[in-house]
C-alpha cells in the first residue's frame, strides 16, 4: 500500500527498546511526507501497555500477535509470521532496529520477500517520487552512500540504535488489530535457556570523555597507557575494529557502524586512520582531537584538533602532564 510505513516494535521482556522509539520518530516523519500512515508490529505476551505506548508515540495502527514465546527469536517461525503479514497488507516501507534480533530478522524477511535491505542506516528520508533514501556509510572509506530500492516492496532498512532522535509523545487516535497466526509453523529451534551475560557494560554512549584507539596504537603497552589516560580524564575507552581484531580491546568497546555510537564532550583518537565505519560513530562528539603519525590520515580532515606525531612519545608525556595538573 502506498505510503504505508511499518516499524517492527522490538521489546525486551515487555519494555520497548529505545531504538524502537527512535525509528518511530523517523517513521512518523516519513509517513507524513508520503501522506500515508505509520504502523507497528508487536509480538509477544501482555502487549496492552506497549500497544498504548506505541500509539502515544505516533502509531496509527498496531498489528498484534499475542501469545508468542516471550523470548522472541527470529527463527523460521517468526520470519514466517512477519512475511505473511507483509504479504497480506503490502506495506511500502518496513523498518527495524539493527539490534541482535532485528539484524537477524530483517535479512531473513528480505530474502523471503525477495526485496532489498540496507543495514545500519544512519539516516532515512524520502525523495519526490516517494522512494526511501537509506543513508549508509559506504566502503569504510570516507563516503556515505544513499541506497534505494526502486522496484521492489517493501523497502527495508535497519537503523542503528542511538543515531536517530526519539520521536515525541503526542495524542493520536491509533488502533490495535489482533492478527491470527495462520497455520502451524515449522521451527527447527528450541530455546533452552537465557543466560545473563557478564558483558561488562561500559557506558560508552553516556561517556563525557571517550579515548579511542585504532590499529596505529601498535601494541598492548600503549593500549594500557590509553586506558590510564581515560581513567585520568574520567573517560571510557573505545576502539576501532582493527584494535579489537588485534586483541587490545573487546568487541563491546568498538565504536562505529557495526559498534557503538558515542556523543561525548571530548573525543581523543589515537592511531585512528579515520575510516567512515568508525567516524559515523563519533560524528556527534562536541570536540574531536586526533593523534596520528601519518599526515595523510583521513581523520585529520574530520577533527577539530589534530596532532601529527608519534603517539608512543606523546602518550606518556601527556599522561605525565595531566597527572601534574591533577596534583595541583
Amino acid at each position, binding site marked *: 500500500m502506498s505510503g504505508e510505513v511499518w516499524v517492527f516494535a522490538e521489546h525486551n521482556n515487555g519494555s520497548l527498546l529505545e531504538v524502537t522509539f527512535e525509528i518511530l520518530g523517523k517513521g512518523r516523519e516519513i509517513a507524513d511526507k508520503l501522506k500515508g500512515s505509520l504502523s507497528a508490529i508487536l509480538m509477544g505476551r501482555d502487549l496492552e501497555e506497549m500497544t498504548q505506548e506505541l500509539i502515544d508515540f505516533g502509531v496509527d495502527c498496531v498489528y498484534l500477535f499475542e501469545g508468542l514465546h516471550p523470548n522472541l527469536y527470529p527463527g523460521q517461525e517468526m520470519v514466517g509470521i512477519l512475511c505473511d503479514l507483509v504479504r497480506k497488507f503490502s506495506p511500502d516501507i518496513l523498518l527495524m532496529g539493527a539490534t541482535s534480533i532485528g539484524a537477524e530478522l530483517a535479512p*531473513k524477511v528480505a530474502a523471503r520477500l525477495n526485496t*532489498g535491505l540496507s543495514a545500519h542506516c544512519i539516516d532515512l528520508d524520502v525523495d519526490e517520487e516517494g522512494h526511501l533514501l537509506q543513508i549508509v556509510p559506504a566502503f569504510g572509506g570516507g563516503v556515505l552512500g544513499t541506497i534505494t530500492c526502486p522496484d521492489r516492496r517493501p523497502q527495508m532498512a535497519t537503523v542503528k540504535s542511538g543515531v536517530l532522535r526519539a520521536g515525541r509523545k503526542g495524542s493520536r487516535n491509533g488502533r490495535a488489530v489482533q492478527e491470527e497466526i495462520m497455520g502451524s509453523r515449522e521451527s527447527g*529451534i528450541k530455546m533452552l535457556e537465557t543466560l545473563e551475560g557478564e558483558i561488562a557494560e561500559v557506558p560508552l554512549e553516556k561517556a563525557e570523555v571517550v579515548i579511542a584507539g585504532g590499529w596505529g596504537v601498535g601494541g598492548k603497552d600503549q593500549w594500557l597507557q590509553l586506558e590510564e589516560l581515560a581513567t585520568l580524564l574520567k573517560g571510557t575507552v573505545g576502539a576501532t575494529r582493527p584494535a579489537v581484531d588485534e586483541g587490545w580491546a573487546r568487541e563491546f568497546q568498538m565504536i562505529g*557502524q557495526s559498534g557503538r555510537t558515542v556523543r561525548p564532550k571530548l573525543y581523543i583518537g589515537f592511531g585512528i586512520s579515520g575510516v567512515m565505519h568508525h567516524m559515523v560513530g563519533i560524528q556527534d562528539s562536541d570536540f574531536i582531537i586526533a593523534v596520528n603519525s601519518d599526515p595523510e590520515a583521513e581523520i585529520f580532515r574530520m*577533527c577539530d*584538533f589534530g596532532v601529527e606525531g608519534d603517539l608512543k612519545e606523546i602518550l606518556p608525556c601527556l599522561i605525565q602532564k595531566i597527572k601534574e*595538573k*591533577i596534583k595541583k
Partner: protein
Amino acid sequence: MRIIVCLKPVPDPKYWKNLTIDPVLKVLVREGMPNVINPLDRNALEEALIIIEKQGGEVILLSMAPLFCLSVLREALAVGGDRAVLLSDRAFAGSDTLATSYILSEAVKRLAPFDLILCGNETIDGGTAQVGPQLSQFLGMEGINFVCGVEKFLGEERKGRSLIVRRKTEHGYLRMQVKLPALLSVVKEANIPRYTTFMGILGAEKKEIQVWNGNDLNIDLSRIGLTGSPTKMSSLFVPELKRRREIVKGTPEVVSSLIIDKIHQAGLL
C-alpha cells in the same frame, strides 16, 4: 559430517585509505588491492575444523570472488579444509547481499548433502551481516547469527540430528538447540583461529580448488549482478565536516600542552 565454510576475501584494512570507487558502477575498485580472508571467516573455518576433528568428515570452503582471489582461497586451505570452490563470473559483479546469497545458495545446493554451513557473522568491508541469514532463507533452513559457542551434537548423523549452540544478545546469551542442516554465523568469541603452518602451506598446494561460473549453477540471470540486485547505490557523497581542522606538529612536550589546553576548552580537567 560435511561442513561448508563461506569465506570472503576482503581488502586488507591496512591499505583501506588507498581504496577508490568506480564512478560508474559505484562499487569498490578492488583490483590491485591486497586481499585477506575476512577475519571472522577465519573463526568460521576454525569452528569447522574443531568439529571435524571430533566428528570426522569433510570441510569445503566456498567463496564468491574475482579470479585473482584464488590465492586467498589457497591461503585458507593452508589453514585447513579439504577442498574449495570459487564462484567467479563477470555476471556476478555488483551483486548486493540478496543476489550474493542467492548465488551462494545455488552453489551450496550443488554441494549437498551437508550438515552445517558456517559463516563469519559480518565482513569488515561491507559489514552488513546479511549474507548469512539470507543464505539460510534461500536454503529453507534455520540460520543463527552471533554464535559464540558450539556445544554438542545430539542424535544420529542426518537422522534428525541437532546441535546445541550459544548465541550472543545485548543482554547476555541464549542457549538453543537447532535442527540440522543449519547455518551458523560465528563471532570472535567462538574460538581462536589457528595459525598457518609450513606443513599446511605445502599441503594446500595439493588441495583441489574448483572454479564455477554462472553456467555451472542453476541460476536465474535476472536475479544477479548489478541489474538483478534490488538495492541501488544511487549517490555517494562525502559527509559535511564542520570541524575546525587545526593541525599541529611539535615535540611531545609542546603538543601535550596544546592537547591539555584543548581539553580545558572542552570544559574538562
